[in-house]
């Protein structure tokens, strides 16, 4: 496989981010009906919701918000949310095209009803107590800012002090540019917290949902003692657009999908959403406590 073309050029040229997108946008209009990105069938939204946001026809796993994921994953009324007092700042006073990050945050908060792109807390999964963090892809594409790093680090420390298994459901478009290098540094911060948890003998399971990309993948997503992915989830470091522009070719089918990662040895298993609770419980019984 040759990655370098005859014409040498630096992989991060200004064109790298501008080329064609090789990924189909998922078409999920609001309303009673939705179109499945997998089989393109029209689905009754309520039926999909009752089926854990999985297409009943082709088993395509749809994206979902943090609250929905938590209620799916935990035993009813057992989740106690923690660290809700931590809110995003606008440390760079970031502005672009007449917009400001501070305004953008308020819009996202109003739209999602969440204060940031992650929820953290403790709850029970099939009777087993766990520390659970769930990223929210609906909030600024699940990007990693200072709040995410702080809450995840606090959760990791909480898991260590209470001797709980730590489960993090990842779903992220990568770093949050509006927080600049502070966003980047969250990768190191969360990894350092996980190193301590590891030293203390804690069990950490990361669950990678569609999409898990960029700095999230290159930190806590890939540091699980056990790494689970959902079927078909996009999981990678570099964006497909950047890669396609670097190698000046179309990307192979299935590239950066969960199945691709399993084949190349970077995740432990792919688990269907309907089996996720029982699989987590089984792993906790072997490794946790």
């Amino acid at each position, binding site marked *: 496989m040759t*990655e370098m073309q005859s014409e*040498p050029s630096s*992989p*991060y040229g*200004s064109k*790298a*981010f*501008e080329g064609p997108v090789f990924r189909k946008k998922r078409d999920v209009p609001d309303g009673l009906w939705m179109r499945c990105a997998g089989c393109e069938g029209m689905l009754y939204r309520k039926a999909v919701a009752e089926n854990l946001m999985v297409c009943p026809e082709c088993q395509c796993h749809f994206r979902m918000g943090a609250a929905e994921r938590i209620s799916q994953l935990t035993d009813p009324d057992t989740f106690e949310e923690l660290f*809700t007092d931590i*809110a*995003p*700042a606008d*440390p*760079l006073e970031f*502005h*672009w095209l007449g917009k400001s990050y501070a305004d953008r945050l308020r819009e996202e*908060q109003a739209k999602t009803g969440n*204060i940031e792109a992650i929820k953290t807390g403790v709850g029970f999964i099939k009777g087993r107590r766990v520390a659970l963090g769930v990223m929210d892809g609906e909030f600024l594409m699940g990007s990693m*800012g*200072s*709040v995410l*790093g702080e809450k995840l680090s606090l959760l990791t420390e909480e898991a260590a002090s209470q001797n709980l298994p730590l489960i993090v459901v990842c779903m992220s478009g990568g*770093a*949050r*540019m509006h927080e*600049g*290098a*502070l*966003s*980047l*540094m*969250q*990768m*190191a*911060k969360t*990894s*350092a*917290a996980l*190193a*301590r948890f*590891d030293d203390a003998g804690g069990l950490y399971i990361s669950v990678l949902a569609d999409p898990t990309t960029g*700095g999230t*993948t*290159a*930190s806590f*997503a*890939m*540091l699980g003692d056990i790494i689970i992915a959902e079927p078909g989830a996009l999981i*990678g*470091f*570099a*964006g497909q657009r*950047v*890669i396609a522009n*670097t*190698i000046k070719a179309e990307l192979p089918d299935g590239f*950066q999908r969960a199945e*691709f990662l399993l084949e190349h*040895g*970077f995740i432990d298993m792919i688990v269907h959403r309907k089996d996720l609770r029982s699989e987590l419980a089984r792993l906790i019984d072997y490794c946790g406590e």
Partner: protein
Amino acid sequence: MAKTNSAAEGYVLPFEKPIMHLQRQIAELEASQVQAGRDYSSEIRQLRSQFVSLLKKTYQNLSAWETVQVARHPARPLASDYIETMAKNFVELHGDRRYADDKAIRCGLARVGTEKVVLVAQQKGRDTREKIACNFGCAHPEGYRKALRAMRLGEKFHLPIVCLIDTQGAYPGIGSEERGVAEAIAVNLMEMSRLRTPIVCVVIGEGGSGGALGIGVGDRIAMLEYAFYSVISPEGCAAILWRTGEKAPEAAQAMKMTARDLKALDVIDDIVPEPLGGAHRNPAESAHNLERHIVRTLRELKRIDPEAILKHRYERWRRMGKVIRVEGSPSADQA
């Protein structure tokens, strides 16, 4: 001295044109002085002092985008130049023992000043052949794994680690993803946070996102005065938020990626001064400043007990970021 090719030596940054103009005038006067046998020394002296004050003024007021251009200057000293000038008795170590020897990250044992260290350095390449060999300094997973292997040697034999960062980012390619570049970087972040030996990192040019951070976790993080460190390249940020890469200057400004900005945000601890007019004007002096910073920092860290080093390192990284703590029940209108 840094090896510079002729193309790089003649390279003039757009904002340096008035400076170059003065420089040319001085050279012309000097030449005609010799040819015509006349004494222009007072004019030359005057032009020289103009030159120095303009250079000083220009470099004291560089915009973020101008800083990016300096950090990417083709004649800017690279890791290999610093290794040559600063690292005595360098023993290079090759390969990650798993897949390949990635030339984008050079590792080895070296003496810097009086200190024996493990050196890990990102190498962009000077000429076309070297650039291709090391993929313009964009490392594959094997580069990060080689770096960790070298750093573990440091831990085992009680040698401190020095990392020189200079990359646009990890290599975005099929092989890189297939061999797990995200996993390689993640593991480095985790392990560097707990290696039981002092780690000193310096961004010498470009600090390009996760690819830079992959060798950038340590006890003291510094940047050369005109280096930059960013979560995404200004072109990348501009292409996404401004919808065109041409707005890179605006993006560079907005992301606060210069040494001065990042020191104010507590992302870095120290700024290593560059020679007047940037490292490319005097690579030897830049190497001298870098060496002095490294030696001084290592001596400081040597005095601290190893357990305390790990504790301080954890606390240093744990503090990263800026959040707001809201009292009581949070609401969406709080910001």
